[in-house]
């Protein structure tokens, strides 16, 4: 069964450093999403991406964040200069054009020290 994969599973970084979180969506999906979940809190929408551009972003998704689909398979989230409050679990999700279900990856736990 096809699935969304994410790497790494756990990333530890120093405050101010850049991180790139990687996702491989399901191959025939066209809509891509990033969400985050701060420990003990709810899952929050960050950004949606379709047709090689951002279709919607939340207030959280400020200039420090960017997304990219560098090739036909990967979908990345970059945080330019990490802050302590960026520590969270980051989930990637994808959806096909005809479906209503988003398929989630296992997440990347980002720890900013």
């Amino acid at each position: 069964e096809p699935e969304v994969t994410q790497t790494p599973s756990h990333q530890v970084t120093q405050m101010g450093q850049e991180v790139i979180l990687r996702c491989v969506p399901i191959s025939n999906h066209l809509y891509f999403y990033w969400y985050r979940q701060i420990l003990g809190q709810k899952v929050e929408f960050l950004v949606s991406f379709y047709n090689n551009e951002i279709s919607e972003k939340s207030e959280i998704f400020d200039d420090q964040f960017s997304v990219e689909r560098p090739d036909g398979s990967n979908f990345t989230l970059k945080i330019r200069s990490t802050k302590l409050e960026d520590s969270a679990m980051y989930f990637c999700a994808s959806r096909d054009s005809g479906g209503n279900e988003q398929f989630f990856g296992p997440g990347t736990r980002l720890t900013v020290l």
Partner: protein
Amino acid sequence: AQSVTQLDSQVPVFEEAPVELRCNYSSSVSVYLFWYVQYPNQGLQLLLKYLSGSTLVESINGFEAEFNKSQTSFHLRKPSVHISDTAEYFCAAYGSSNTGKLIFGQGTTLQVKP
């Protein structure tokens, strides 16, 4: 504001007892509603969904949820829980935009005790 509210942060229950996890949504979200389950140290898995049609939807592992438009609710129920049902449960809805953004509730921790 678009919101999904889960009224209980934790629900402890004994094995084989019935359980209900409550979810209410604001009228400003769409009525595409979902329940996701998150087992410890794992990602989010879709449990069941309501898109249209019958207001009662079921999952393959015995959970069911009922869409109630007048009460803007989508409560999750199971008549008899197992230890393996211990997990975090999230109610979610699509936002009113057509980008597919999911709005999640705060989550409910279901703790099944032997």
